[in-house]
Each structure stands twice: as C-alpha cells, then as structure tokens.
C-alpha cells in the first residue's frame, strides 16, 4: 500500500468508528465495541505499516488560505512520529480490549468506545501532524476527547468536576500555546514543521530574540497538557474517569502529547537557553513535588497519577537537558509501564471496588496473582530497577543531566528517583504484603472472573514491553536518527543506588513483617500534612484564582445589572417622568393654553423684532 493510504488508515480510521458507534449504534453496545476496536486495529495496522516503510518525505496538502496565511495539513513521517504512532495505536488498542472486560457492565459503553475512538483519532492525527496548527487542532481535540472520557460517568458530580477541571487547566496552558503559535505566523507565514525546524531557514533564524518568548509560551501549553507545576492539579482529579481511561490518558497519550510536542520542537527549545532553564526548573520541581505527594497517597490511582506527573517531569528534564533521545525513550517506556500499572490497578479496583491500597491489600490483592505480577513488573520499571525498561530510559536522563553539567538538577533528579522508588515500592508492599488479610467470601457470579482474559492479555503484552523495551534503546535512537552515548557503569551507580535505597526504605517502612506501616515522613508532621494535602495547591487556587474569577464575574454581573440594565430602566423611567411633566402642561385650562401660546408668539415676535 502506498504511504498516503497507510497514513490515512493510521489517522482516520477511528473517526468513522466514532461516528458509527455514537450515532448509529448507541443502543447496540456490543456492536459499537466491535466497530471501535476494528477502527483502532486498522489504525494500528496503518501505523505499523508506516513504521515498516520507514521514514519518508512528509505528505502535504493545502488546507486553507487567508490573507498571508497558507495552511496545509498532512503527515509528517519521520522516525519519531512513526514510532510514537505505533505506541499510541497499540496502547489504545490494549486499553480498548481491556475495557471490554472492565466496562462490560456499563450501559453507556457504546458512548465510551465512541469516545475512545475519537480520542484515538485525535491523538494519532496529532502525532502525524505536519503542520504546527494542525498539531494544535488535534491537541485541542485530544483535550476534548479526554474531557468526555474523564467525565464519562457524568452523573457522578466528582467525575464531572474533574473533567471540567482537566479541560480548564489544560485550556489555560493552551492559551499560551495558542499565542505562541500565532506569534510564529507573522515570522514565517506558515506552520510547516520541517520548515520551522530547519536550522538554516527555520524559526531559529527568523525569530531572533522572540524565540525565547515563543518557546516559553509553547512550554505553557506543555505545562498544561503534561500536567506540570503549576497546572498539574487536574491530573490526579482526572482519576475519576474509568481506570482504562486513566491508563490511556496518563501513559501514552494525552499527557504524553506535551512531551511529544516538546520533542517535536526540540531544536527550537535548544536554541532558547533561557527557556530551557525554566523548563528544567519547572520539571525538576514538579518531579519532586509530585513524588512527595505520591509518597503519602493511599489511593492507588492517585499514586499512579502523581507518579505520572513526576515522570513527565523527568522526561521534560531529559529533553531540556538537551537529550532528545532521553526524553523520547522515557516517554515510550513510561507509556508502556504506566499503562501496565494502570491496567493492573484497574483489575484491583474492578474487583474490590475500592481505590485504597491498604484496603486492596487487606482484602487479598495478591490473590490476583497475574495482576500482582504485572504490578510488580510495572512498579519495578517505574522505580527504575534494572534491567526493566524504566531503568534504561531514566539512566539516559541522568546521563543527560550529568552531561549537561547542572549539578543542582542532577541532584534533584536523584532525589526524585529516590522518592519514586520509595513510593512505588510502598505501593507494591501495601498491596502485596499487607499486615493482615481479611478473607471474605466474594460473590464472583455477577462480576465474572476477576481477571478475564480480555483484561489479562493487554496486561501481559504490556508487561513484556515493560521488561524488554529497555533493550531497544539503540533502535529507538536510530529511529530518531541519533546515536546514543555509551554510559559507563560507574555513572549508573548513583541512580541505581538511590533506587535501591528507596526500595529498601519502603521495605523498612511497609514491607517487613514488623513494619510501622507509616512513612518515614510521618516523623515530620508538618511535612506530612503538607504532602497529604498536596502542598495545599488546590486550596491555594481555590482561594485565589477561583475566588478572583468569581469576584470578577460578580463585578461584571453587577455592572451589567446595576449599571446597564438599571441604567436603561432609569432612562426609560425618566422619559416617562418627562412625559408626565410635559402632559402636566396640558392642565385643561383653556386660558393657560392661550396664554402659553401667546407667550411663545410674543417671544417669537421679540426674536424677530430684536434682530
């Protein structure tokens, strides 16, 4: 098949699935599921086909012209997009298959699968977009699809609020992104990515000093999408969505879009050192911040959510440190193992109907053996335990940070890695090694098997990925057209050290038989409270921004009703009053009439006479 067909297949095929599932098959969920999975499978097929064909010239088509803008749409088929496209399609498909089990009892699953298709379409189109504006459009649509998915159970007020929050927080970032993109246009008159990135004729040359501003604004969008501080708070809340959705959104796709965009525009960022410093600082701070929160969270999805934020910080650090490969590599490995972790947690949640790790553990989480194994692999990968995938990709990031020579950030990353290892292990220990196990007679009849094959198969697939992907670093680098540096064993030591240290501490706190089962941080109550309350950031936002917004809208509303509405009414009333005044002249007394008349006649005569 030719490239265009494949590209169309890879991007467009979920769209008809979305439409059909939503509009035509709304009352036939099983057919809707089939259609959706078929669509995504086709997309996977397409993307794999593209990958096999290897990088080619971008395909471009004119889209619209207005004034001096000439926009095009098309497909950018370089190594990064090919690789990432496959990852997206694959993980989406995994999640869909998994959802067959997870959502089996939900009456609205036709809508669910439709929205997944919509999501797949938007995300894949985003990945392959050749034009920055095209990227933005699908970036927004990704946000929209995730809005619907997070708020899938819209009858739950929390879910609806979470969806809203996600949409708004990312929108705030998008404003920056949008401005940034629009600032590019006058400089280049088009948004063609290869042209923009061209080192000789691209934006780097054209923008000059404005480049810092532009990249910073674009980074704002990335902050929103990839849930970096200070716009990260939507992501944990977004866990209100169905767990497979979390797996999808917070592993390979939605949040990855930000990192992907940064990777896409990496040359631009590299040319703007000021921005890079800010990126590094924000990412490092985010990584630390969210790791500390994850340390004390008890909700398994919250832990995973904060770990996502933290890992995204890692990726951005890697990119900002100058290593495209480090960022992308971690992005891909993270996609796999985080999806794995979410899917595993989904099994627990589905089965035990709770998110609380302690509760899961107590009620026999480890009895779900396959899942617990998956959890162990995922957790290991996340913690960066060699030789799992996470180890290699994180190692690249450390190397990049070390290479770049910013000791401060290197240390920050180490601490974050330490914390990651700690809370990951904590999670695992809480589930797998509870202090007591309450045997309960679980009535499985209405649930079916706790680990149906449709749920286990994706887990297995991803687990394999999480184990093996680390060894494909060179291949991935090759796809990116890079040659990964060889790392000395010695340079790996600090990283491995902190990981082991973290896990050990977690074992000391939670794993061993006489463990206190409370984190070491509980020793410092102030910090503990800070972490448990997520650094009070939500409260701060509520107290400042939400209230500011409310106050402003109240102010404007008051202006509207007091000044404009009442003002109009006042004008009306004074007209009426003027009317009654005027008609009071008409007092019914004929001589007054005549007198007034003659008075004015006299005035008129005087006017003429005196001239």
């Amino acid at each position, binding site marked *: 098949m030719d490239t265009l067909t494949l590209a169309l297949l890879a991007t467009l095929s979920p769209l008809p699935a979305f439409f059909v599932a939503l509009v035509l098959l709304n009352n036939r969920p099983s057919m809707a599921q089939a259609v959706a999975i078929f669509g995504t499978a086709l997309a996977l097929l397409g993307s794999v086909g593209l990958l096999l064909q290897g990088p080619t010239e971008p395909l471009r088509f004119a889209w619209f012209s207005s004034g001096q803008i000439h926009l095009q749409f098309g497909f950018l088929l370089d190594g990064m997009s090919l690789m990432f496209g496959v990852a997206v399609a694959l993980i989406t498909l995994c999640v869909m298959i998994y959802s067959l089990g997870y959502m089996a009892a939900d009456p609205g699953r036709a809508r669910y699968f439709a929205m997944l298709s919509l999501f797949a379409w938007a995300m894949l189109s985003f990945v392959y977009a050749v034009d920055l504006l095209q990227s933005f459009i699908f970036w927004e649509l990704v946000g929209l699809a995730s809005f619907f998915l997070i708020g899938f159970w819209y009858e739950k007020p929390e879910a609806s609020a979470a969806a809203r929050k996600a949409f708004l927080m990312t929108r705030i970032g998008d404003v920056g992104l949008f401005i940034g993109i629009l600032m590019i246009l006058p400089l280049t008159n088009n948004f063609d990515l290869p042209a923009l990135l061209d080192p000789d004729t691209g934006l780097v040359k054209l923008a000059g000093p404005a480049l810092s501003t532009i990249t910073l604004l674009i980074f704002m969008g990335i902050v929103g999408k990839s849930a970096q501080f200070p716009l990260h708070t939507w992501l944990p809340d977004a866990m209100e969505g169905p767990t497979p959705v979390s797996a999808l959104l917070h592993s390979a796709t939605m949040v990855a879009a930000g990192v992907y965009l940064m990777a896409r525009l990496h040359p631009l960022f590299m040319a703007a050192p000021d921005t890079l410093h800010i990126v590094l600082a924000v990412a490092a701070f985010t990584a630390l911040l969210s790791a500390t929160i994850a340390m004390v969270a008890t909700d398994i999805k919250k832990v995973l959510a904060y770990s996502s934020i933290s890992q995204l910080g890692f990726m951005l650090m890697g990119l900002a440190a100058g290593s495209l490969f480090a960022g992308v590599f971690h992005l891909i490995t993270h996609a796999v193992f985080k999806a794995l972790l979410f899917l595993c947690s989904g099994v627990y949640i589905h089965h035990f109907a709770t998110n609380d790790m302690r509760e899961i553990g107590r009620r026999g989480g480890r009895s779900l053996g396959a899942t617990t194994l998956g959890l162990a692999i995922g957790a290991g990968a996340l913690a960066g335990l060699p030789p799992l995938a996470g180890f290699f990709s994180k190692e690249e990031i450390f190397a990049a940070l070390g290479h770049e020579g910013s000791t401060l950030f290197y240390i920050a990353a180490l601490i974050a890695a330490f914390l990651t290892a700690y809370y990951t292990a904590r999670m695992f220990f809480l589930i797998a090694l509870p202090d007591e196990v309450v045997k309960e007679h679980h009535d499985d009849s209405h649930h079916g098997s706790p680990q149906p094959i449709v749920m286990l198969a994706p887990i297995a697939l991803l687990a394999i990925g999480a184990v093996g992907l680390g060894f494909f670093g060179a291949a991935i680098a090759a796809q990116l057209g890079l040659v990964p540096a060889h790392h000395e064993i010695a340079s790996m030591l600090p990283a491995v050290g902190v990981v082991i240290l973290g896990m050990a501490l977690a074992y000391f706190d939670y794993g061993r038989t006489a463990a206190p089962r409370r984190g070491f941080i509980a020793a410092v109550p102030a910090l503990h409270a800070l972490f448990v309350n997520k650094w009070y950031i939500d409260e701060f936002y509520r107290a400042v921004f939400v209230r500011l917004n409310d106050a402003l809208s109240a102010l404007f509303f008051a202006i509207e009703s007091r000044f404009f509405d009442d003002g109009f009414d006042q004008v009306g009333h004074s*007209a*009426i009053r*003027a*009317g*009654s*005044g*005027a*008609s009071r*002249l*008409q007092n*019914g007394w*004929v001589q007054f*009439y*005549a007198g*007034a*008349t*003659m*008075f*004015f*006649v006299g005035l*008129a*005569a005087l*006017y*003429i*006479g005196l*001239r």
Partner: protein
Amino acid sequence: MSDALLFAPELALIVTGLALFACPIFEFRYRTAWLLAAAGGALSLAAALLTIDMSGQPFAVGIYRVDFFSQFAKAALALGFVLVAVISHRPETLDRSAWVEFPMFLLFATLGAMMMVSATELLTLYIAMELAAYPLYIGVALHRSTGNGGESATKYMVQGMIASAVSLYGMSFLYGVFGSTYFSDFVQQLPAATGQPLLWIGTALLLSGFLFKLGAFPFHFWTPDTYQAAPHEVVTYLATVSKVAAIALLCRLTALMTDVQITTLLMWLSIAAMTLGNFAALIQQDVKRLLGYSAIAHAGYVLIGVQTGAQLGFSSALFYALGYLVMSVACFLVICEVGRDSDLISIDALKGLHQRSPLMAATLLIGLFGLIGLPPTVGFIGKWFLFSAALEQGQFGLVLVAAANSVVALYYYLIVLRAAYLEEAVDAAPVSVSPWVRLTALASMAMVLVLGTFPGRFWDMAARAAQALG
C-alpha cells in the same frame, strides 16, 4: 368653460353642498346625505385628478391660482374627505339630531381647505381659512355626550379664534408692508422689504393660523383635549384633511416668503413640537388623546420639511402630508369602528382586537407602523424624505433630534399595538364592520403600503407640486 374646469373640484363640492343643504329641508334620511357626500367627494377627487396638470386663474387675476401644487393638494384633500365621509357611515358619537347636516359641514370645510390651497390673496385666504374652520367648530360641538362635548368644542374654538385673530393681525402687517393683498405683489416687493422686522413678524403671525390647524407648537394645546372628546368622525377629519391643508399652506407661505428668521423659528417649533408631543404621549391612556399628542409630534416632523425653506423640503412635507393622511385614516377608522358605542376610548378598549376583528387589528397595525415610521409603510419613506431634506441643508443635529424622538414615540405606539394585537380580549364580541368600512380599511392599508413601497410616482408628484410653488 376652462375656468369652470379649473374650478371643477370645488364646483363638485359646491354642487353637492347645495344638495346636502336641501337634505334636512326635505327630511332625507342620513343615508342619503352620507351617500351624497361621499359621491360628491369622489367626484371632486376625480375632478382634481383630472385637472391636475392644468393651471390658470379661474377668477379675477391674482386671487386664485390653480396649478399643480393646488390640484395635488386638492386631490389629497378630496381623498381625505371621501375616506372620512365613508367612515362616518354611522357617526354614533354625533348628536343624532345633527346627522343629516353633518356631511354638509365636513364638505364645506373641505371646500374651505381647497380654497385655501388655491388662494393667492390675503382676503381670499382669510375667508377660506374661516370657511375651513367654522364647520369644524360646529362639528366638534355636535357631540352627543352631555359630558365633555361642550368643553372640547369651547377649548377648540377659543384657541382657534385667538389663532385666527393673530393670523389676521399678521395679515394686516403684510398689507401694510406691501400695500397690497396679492401674493404676486409680495413676491415683487419682497427684495426691498426684507429688512423690515414688521414684515417677518407679520409673516410669523400669519403662519400661526396654520400652525394652529396643524396642531404645531405653540398652537398645539387644543389637540389632545379636542381629539379626546370630539365625535370620532370629526376627529378623523381634523387629523387628516385639516392637516393636509395646513401643511400645504405652510409650504406655500414659507415658499412665498422665506427668511432665515422664519425658518429658524420653524425649526425650533419643530423640535419643540415633536419633543413635547412624543413625551407627553408616553403616559396617555386614552387612544384618541394619545393620537392627539402623536399628531403634535407629527406636526413637528412635517415642519422639518417646511423649515428647510427649500424645494426638497416642501416636496417632502407634501409627500408626508399625503402619507400622514392615509396613515391617520387607517388609525382613526379603527377608532371609529371600535369606539362606536363609547365616547372615550381607552387603550384597554382595544384589547384583543385581533380576535374581535382581524381586519381592524391589521389596519391599526399598518397605520401605527406608519406613524412609527417603519417600512414598508409610507411613514418610513416619508421620514426618509423629510430627514433627507433637512440634511440637504446640513441640519444634522435636527435630524438626530427627530430620529431620537421617533424612538421615544415607538414606546407609546407599541403600547397601543400591544393591546390590540397581542393581548386577549376582555369582551370577545366581534366588532361588526360594515362592508364600506371594510373597503376603506383595505384601501387605506393598501395606500399606506403602496406609498411606502412604490413611492416613485407620488414623490414625483410632490416634487412637481413643490416646484409649482416656485
């Protein structure tokens, strides 16, 4: 013979008038007199249209001129008279003992109006003016009610007499300044006399008689009171034929003797009239009274055209006069029909008119839309011409004031419309509308709309008429 032809519109009325005079003597029924009057009016209208292109002086040289202007105005007057005559097929609010004579009064008033527009000499003008006025004093006084009829007539007449005395006094000055009563002499001697304040005082005073007929500020006081408590049919006449005659005369006199002092005065009068009329109308509860105030406001609008002192202004004023005639007929026709049994008509009495008589409601709608100045009625295009004429003189501010005024006016017209069209009836008994009135209603609606959408022909006529003013 040709003289008789020139005088044909008036002659038709005179002949009919004599026949009408015989009606009470031979104790004919009202129906006969009514039919006779309508037929006479139609005849006169036909005659006016027939002679519209003629010009000449049927009587002694200089006192009476027939030209396009006069015939155009006469056609309008005759049209108004016919419409009013048809509408008053059962003038219940009129003293029943005077029914048979009633058409005669209207007819002679019309005759007076016709003579006014042709008169080119002060004495003729004066007597024509009085001929046009006295029958209306009588008509207003012939209200059946034992309540306010007399009051209304008294007020009307006191102010009318004062206005005519002022007018007469003004004529005396013109007589003195020019030493003649002939307009032709005026024109001749005007250049020499422009510096005379007495000339312009005389002119201003002379105009007051017509301002009174028009109901313009400061001679507007009679309008609401008289409209409210005079017999509906007489009010209809006052609101239509009378106005046309007054506007025509104002045009003729202003065209004759234009001076910046007079036009400035008229401009201020115009502003005062429309502002006062519109604002005072806002709080009215009685429909006829409200329309009285609206008439004051419209007098103000028409004066916009007159005060330009230019041909475009006169033609726009004449065109508006024609439009105002048909719009008013449409409105008052409804009032005559709906208010047949009551002396006073409050806005509430119109409630649910669309159920009681869709035709009447539609007529009122079209009429009021016209008065508001909305397309596709003649009110819109009429205002367009008027404002355009003022802007030709660069009077942007005046137009702005007038336009703002029309917004104020909107309110009270809509209140009336709302009652008629949009509210449910209290008493849903259908209004019985005689076929004649039906026809008149349709005709007036058609005229309002046709004049509004295809104004070309009529505008050309008005322009020609203004041209004839010289």
